[in-house]
C-alpha cells in the first residue's frame, strides 16, 4: 500500500536550502510568503547546531530559528521560488 506523491509537488517540487549558520541541508518549499514546508533528513538533524528543543507544555515547540531565517532569506533572494509571487509557479 504505497503512499502516493503529493499532487502539489508535481509542478512545484521542494528545493534544497542550506542553513547559513551550520550548513545543514534541508528541502524547503513555499507556496506563499507565509506557507513553508521543510523536509529534514537525519543528516541535517545531526548537523544542526541551533536546535531548540523548546518546552512544549508551555507552548514553546522544538524549532531551529537559524534554519527558519535561512529559508526566509532564500525566498527573498529568489534561491527558492515563492509560488504565489509573480512567475513563481513552474
Amino acid at each position, binding site marked *: 500500500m504505497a503512499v502516493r506523491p503529493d*499532487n502539489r509537488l508535481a509542478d512545484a517540487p521542494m528545493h534544497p536550502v542550506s542553513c547559513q549558520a551550520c550548513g545543514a541541508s534541508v528541502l524547503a518549499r513555499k507556496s506563499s510568503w507565509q506557507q513553508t514546508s521543510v523536509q529534514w533528513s537525519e543528516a541535517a538533524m545531526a548537523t544542526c547546531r541551533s536546535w531548540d528543543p523548546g518546552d512544549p*507544555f508551555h507552548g514553546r515547540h522544538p524549532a531551529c530559528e537559524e534554519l527558519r531565517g535561512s529559508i526566509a532569506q532564500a525566498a527573498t533572494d529568489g534561491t527558492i521560488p515563492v509560488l504565489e509571487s509573480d512567475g513563481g509557479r513552474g
Partner: protein
Amino acid sequence: MTVLETTVLETDGDQVRRIEFEAAPTRFARGWHCIGLERTFRDGKPHSITAFGKKLVVFENSSGELNVLDAYCRHMGGDLSQGTIKGDEVACPFHDWRWGGDGRCKQIPYSRRVPMRARTQAWQTMLQDGLVFVWNDPEGNPPIPEQAIPLIEGGPSTPGWTDWAWYETRVETNCREIIDNLVDMAHFFYVHHGFPTYFKNVFEGHTATQLQKGVNRDDMRPAEKKIGAPKRLGNTSAATYYGPSFMIDDLLYHYADGDVKTVLINCHYPIDENSFVLMYGISMERPDDGPEDPEEAAKLTQKLVDTVRLGFEQDVAIWKNKTRIDNPLLCEEDGPVYQLRRWYEQFYTDVADVTPEMTERFEFELDTTKPNEAWRREVDENLARRAQEQDS
C-alpha cells in the same frame, strides 16, 4: 452568495480526475492502543472487546494487573469473556479451563495434566493515567521502548485536575479517516464551525503534531450554548499522536474572564478494517477562582467533553457518507495529507522495512491568510443576513 476569486490552474485538457483507492489494509497498526478507562475493567468480571479483527478478553488478576488474551479458548472454542475470573486466571465457561495472563493454560481442574502447546495469544498491557493500553504488533515483538506513551502533564494524575470525562463510540469506517483530520485545517471551519487562524503540522519519528490557534465564529449559534456551556472566544491547541492511535492535546480554551487549561485525549482502536472504537476524554485544571466544589468542576469538564462530542458527531456524519480516497486533490491551502499518510504507513510496515522518509522530520506551516479572508467574509455575510431577517 460570495464570489471568491479563485485562480483555476491549467490542467491537462479536459480530463476527468478519477478517485482511486485500494481496500483498507487487513493488517492492524503496530503500537500502543488505548482500550478505555482502567476502572471499567476492574469490576471482577472478564470483559469482551473486539479489536485488531479479533475477539479479546480483558481480565484483572489478583495482583491488580489487567491481562488481554484472545477470547476463544484453545480447547473447544469457548468464549473466555463469558467466563469468570478465578484467582490469577480467567476460566472458560465451557469446561473451566484456566488461562493465565501470559497466554498459557495453567490448569484443567478435571484433568491430570495440561496438554502440550496449551498457549493462546496474549497482548502486553500498560496502565497509565487511569487508562489501559494494549500493544499490538503483527510481527509479535515486544513494545518498542522509544514508543512508550508519555505520562500526561496535567490530567487526572496531576493535583488540581479533574478526572476524565470520557466517551466511547463505535464508528463504521476505516481509522485512516480520523488520522487525516490531524492535517485538515479547512474542515475545522466547514464541519466544526471553528475558525483556525494558525495551523502547523510536524511529523517526526513515531509522533505527529498539530499546532492550532482559533477564534470563535460570531455567526454560529455556538453549539455549546445548546448544552449550556459558556461562550468561548477561541482556543490554542498543541496535539500530538504518540504512535498510530493515541493523541494528547494540550488544549487551552479562552474565555472572556480568562483561560481554562485542559488536556484532551483523542484515541481509538480498530475493531476491524472497516470500523473502530473512538474514545475521547477531557481533564480540566480547576481554576483558582473557580468552583471550590469538585462536583462543580466535574460538571464543567462534562460540558467541555459534550462540546467535543458534538464535534466528533459532525465528523462521523461526513465519514458515513464519504468515499475512501488515496489520491486526494489538494490545493495549496490544504495541509500535508500525503506526508501524514507516509508517516502513518510506518505502523503498517514491518520494522525492518520502515524507510527514513516515514520517520524523518517534516514541517508544514499553513498560510491562513486566504482562508481567513474568505471565512471572515462568509461570517460577515451570515451576520448581515441574520440581522436583515430579524428586521423584516
